[in-house]
C-alpha cells in the first residue's frame, strides 16, 4: 500500500532540466521582489522587522538543542501523577487551531486507521478492531503550552501494545500521525512506548465526543497538549523527522513535560 504520508503523484525530475533557465529567472525575480517588499515593510511600519533570519536561526538552533536535552531528561519509567475519577472535568476543554463550531465529525463506518513506514503488518484498522484490543484507563493532567491545565480521564489502547501488535520497529526514531483535521504531528519513540501513552477511544468512561477527537486520538501524560493529535487517521513509524502543525510555525518539537 502506498504511504498516506507521501504525495500521490510525484513530478518527473526531467521537468526541472527542461525549464531550468525559467526557474532561475523566477528565483532572481522573487529575490528582488522579496528584498523590495522587505525594505518597504520597514519603511511602512517605522520599526525594524521583528524576527531577522539570523535571530530566528539561532533560536531554532537552541530549540533543537533543547529537544535533545529534553530527550535526555525523559525518564521512560517515570509516571505522571494520576487523580481520582471524581476530579475529571466534564466536558473537557476544547482547543484547536479553529473554533469548535468548525469541527467536522468523522464517520466511524468509513473511518480507517492506516499504517505505513517501519511496520510489519500495514493492514488498516477499523474502530471495532481497535475496541477489541485490551483497554487501559488513566486520569491525568492536561497541560497546554499556553499555561492552562485540567484533569481528564482517558481510556484506550496502550500505544506500546498497539505498536507491538502491528510489528512496528521499536528502534525507529519517530512515530508520525495524520488526522482528519489536517493536523500532522509526531513524537519520539521513547514517549510512544511510555505506559501513559494511549490511543484513546473514551473520555470519562464514555465514547469520545466529536469535538475531542472521535473515534481515536492520541493522549500522552508526558507531553504538552498540542502534541496530542485528535481524529487520527494514519500512523507512520519512521527515521525521518516528520515535524508537525505547530512545529512548522516555530513551536518546540519535543515539548515534553
Amino acid at each position, binding site marked *: 500500500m502506498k504511504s498516506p504520508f507521501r504525495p500521490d503523484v510525484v513530478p518527473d525530475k526531467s521537468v526541472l532540466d527542461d525549464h531550468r533557465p525559467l526557474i532561475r529567472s523566477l528565483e532572481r525575480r522573487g529575490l528582488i521582489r522579496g528584498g523590495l517588499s522587505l525594505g518597504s515593510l520597514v519603511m511602512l511600519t517605522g520599526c525594524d522587522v521583528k524576527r531577522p533570519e539570523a535571530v530566528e536561526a539561532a533560536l*531554532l538552533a537552541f530549540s533543537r538543542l533543547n529537544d535533545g536535552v529534553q530527550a535526555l531528561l525523559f525518564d521512560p519509567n517515570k509516571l505522571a*501523577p494520576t487523580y481520582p475519577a471524581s476530579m475529571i472535568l466534564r466536558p473537557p476543554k476544547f482547543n484547536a487551531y479553529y473554533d469548535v463550531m468548525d469541527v467536522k465529525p468523522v464517520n466511524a463506518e468509513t473511518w480507517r486507521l492506516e499504517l505505513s513506514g517501519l511496520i510489519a503488518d500495514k493492514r488498516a484498522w477499523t474502530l471495532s478492531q481497535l475496541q477489541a484490543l485490551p483497554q487501559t484507563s488513566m486520569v491525568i*493532567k492536561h497541560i497546554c503550552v499556553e*499555561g492552562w491545565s485540567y484533569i481528564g480521564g482517558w481510556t484506550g489502547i496502550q500505544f506500546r501494545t498497539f505498536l507491538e501488535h502491528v510489528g512496528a520497529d521499536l528502534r525507529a526514531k519517530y512515530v508520525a500521525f495524520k488526522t482528519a483535521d489536517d493536523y500532522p504531528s509526531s513524537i519520539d519513540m521513547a514517549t510512544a512506548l511510555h505506559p501513559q501513552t494511549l490511543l484513546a477511544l473514551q473520555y470519562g468512561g464514555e465514547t469520545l465526543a466529536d469535538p475531542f477527537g472521535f473515534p481515536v486520538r492520541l493522549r500522552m501524560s508526558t507531553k504538552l497538549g498540542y502534541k496530542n493529535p485528535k481524529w487520527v487517521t494514519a500512523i507512520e513509524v519512521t527515521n525521518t523527522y516528520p515535524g508537525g502543525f505547530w512545529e512548522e*510555525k*516555530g513551536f518546540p518539537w519535543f515539548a*515534553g513535560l
Partner: protein
Amino acid sequence: MDQVKDKPIAAPPPIATPGRRLHPLPIRVMHWINAATMLVMITSGWGIYDDDVIIRGFHFSSFWRLGDWAAWSLNWHFAGMWFLVINGLAYLIYGFVTGRFREKLLPIRFKDLVNTIVETLHFKIAHDDLTVYNAVQKLLYIIVIFAGIAQVVTGLAIWKPVQFSGLVSLLGGFQTARVLHFLGMAIIVGFLIVHVALALLVPRTLWAMLSGGPRLARNSQSNQAHPAQGHTI
C-alpha cells in the same frame, strides 16, 4: 576560612599587584550578561504570559513583549534560560569562593536597616563610599539573588512538571508554581526599577560597573575575606 578571624602572625607580605577593584572584571562581565539575559527572560516571559493570563484582564502590550507571538517568546525564553542558569551559577560560585558575598552583603544589622530607611525618607542618601553597601542595599541584593534562584526552580517545575513532579507538589501544584514564577518576575522587576533608578541618580555607580570602580584599601576586611590574599596561620 575560620582562621582568618585570628590575627595574622606576620604582616602580609607586599603584593605586587595593586589593590583589587570594587568590581573585578569577572563580576562586571557576569553583571552585564545577567542584565541582558534578565531583560530577555522578563520580556519573553510576558509574551508567554499573554496567551493565558494569571490576572484577569491584565495583558502586556506588544511593545513590551519579546517575540512577535507566543512561539517565538517561548523560543527566546528557552534559549535565554541557558545564559541565566550558567551565568548565575558562575556568579554564585564566584561570590562564595572569593568571599565577595560575605564581604559585601553581610552582616545586615536590624538597627542599620532602620537607620538607612529613616535617612532615605529624609532624603539623606549617602553615597560617598561606593565600596560599602548600606543595609537596605545589602538586603535588596540578597532578595534579588534568591528571587533569581527561585525563578530557576519554579521555571524548572513548569517546564518539566512530570519529570520533576515531586518539586511541583512541593510548590503546591502546577498552577501555583506558575503563579510563583510570575511573582518571582514581579520581585525582580521591582528590584530592577529601584536598581536602575539609583544607578542613574548616582552615575558613579554605573561607571564603576563598567570600569571596575575605586580600588579597595589593602588593609580592609576584604583582604581577609579574599582567600588569594588571606593568610593562614
